[in-house]
């Protein structure tokens, strides 16, 4: 056998070996507020389906939508609001038959645990002592959009807008408040629970529409079956138990 032939054979064997050893994996794009819960859920899912791998991609729902619209190979999308999922549907990215609501959350006003002026209600934000308020960017971050709608209906948006620092995700808002760089911020109840040593909840705020999280399989997914079973796992009692533990409400 010539060297070239044996090299070719070696190459073929390696290629085949790769093919058969390759376990199925899915990519899940999930809202930033789901970081801790989904990391746990992914591990449990992998444990009960050996050989599978769940790759997690967290960020603001609007940014995740942009990635998918530009062709990112995502299999499952879990958004922090219905509006972003609706946008994904209108851009024909979603297999609409698989769309389900899996959790709810609450919007809270948080302040740094130690420094900063005392804030006990939304009206306190108007005082001159409160100089900076962190919110998510309303265009791309669901928590920012909920905050803007809520403040507009409370007639506080225009008066508070000059004090606002707009962040790229709900976790960045949480970080700004945790560091004490801002005097107050709006995050979800579940995010505030992650940093009890750095932030405290000043008030829970009612939003006009409920903070509802939908999940769906992408239309272009190459792993539809596995993606669908991941979605089933999220809405199953086992998945519910994990989400409960992190403070997410029932859908």
């Amino acid at each position, binding site marked *: 056998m010539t060297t070239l032939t044996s090299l070719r054979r070696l190459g073929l064997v390696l290629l085949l070996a790769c093919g058969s050893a390759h376990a199925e994996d899915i990519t899940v794009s999930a809202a930033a507020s789901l970081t801790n819960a989904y990391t746990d859920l992914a591990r449990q899912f992998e444990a009960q389906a050996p050989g599978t791998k769940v790759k997690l991609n967290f960020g*603001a729902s609007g940014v995740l939508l*942009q990635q998918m619209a530009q062709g990112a190979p995502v299999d499952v999308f879990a958004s922090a609001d219905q509006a972003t999922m609706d946008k994904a549907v209108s851009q024909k990215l979603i297999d609409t038959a698989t769309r389900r609501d899996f959790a709810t959350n609450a919007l809270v006003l948080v302040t740094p645990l130690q420094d900063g002026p005392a804030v006990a209600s939304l009206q306190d934000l108007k005082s001159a002592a409160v100089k900076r308020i962190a919110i998510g960017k309303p265009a*791309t971050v669901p928590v920012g959009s909920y905050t803007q709608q809520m403040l507009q209906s409370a007639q506080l948006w225009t008066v508070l807008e000059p004090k606002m620092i*707009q962040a790229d995700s709900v976790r960045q808002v949480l970080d700004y408040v945790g560091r004490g760089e801002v005097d107050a911020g709006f995050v979800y109840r579940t995010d505030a629970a992650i940093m009890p040593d750095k932030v405290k909840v000043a008030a829970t705020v009612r939003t006009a529409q409920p903070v509802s999280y939908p999940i769906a399989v992408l239309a272009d997914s190459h792993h539809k079956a596995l993606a669908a079973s991941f979605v089933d796992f999220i809405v199953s009692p086992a998945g519910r138990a994990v989400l409960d533990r992190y403070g997410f409400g029932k859908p």
Partner: protein
Amino acid sequence: MRYISAYMTKLIADFDWFPLLLSLKVAALATVLALIIGVGLAWVFARKPFPGSSLLEAVCMLPLVLPPTVIGYVLLVAAGRRSPLGNWLREHFDYTIIFNWHGAVVASAVVAVPLVLKASGAAFAGIDRTLENAASTLGAPPWSVFFRITVPLAWPGILAGALLAYARAMGEFGASLMVAGSIPGQTQTLPMAIYDAVQAGQDDRALLLVLVTSVISILVLTVSKRYFSLR
């Protein structure tokens, strides 16, 4: 065709000039700051080396190779609310560089210093020391030797460093985003505006901003190349 040109006209008419003007301003101030620090340090390393000066020089060059996020984090820790310096500034002057466009200047200056340092260092090394010695022998004090002999002779190299620093400061993104944030109309520089436009799916605006940034950067680099070859 008419529809396209009407669309382009509207896009350009609606163009938000703030990020461009802020970037030009931030880069200018950062370059001045980087020049003061960079030229000063380069002179000390070239003319008055002390034990440990080469180590200090290596540390000063670090911002050139460290990821901008590391620099941003260091600035946050050093000047943030919880730091001694940040706390002191807030208590006594009600001042902070966080979420302030001054923070973008500081971050851009930090990443620009290595460029000025290297260019000036090379320029100082290329000067004939006998000219400086002759000046001191004739009675000129050290600062006079520096400003009237050393700097004029090293000028092309220093200017090349300054232009590189300006281009780098115009493009500074990671560290300045972490320190100053991207507040539209207050701290949003040109690179941040591009990032925000892409994130929000505003591709037309992003493209226009990219074109503006590229044109300016090419201009600055072309001018600086001329000064590099003069040296």
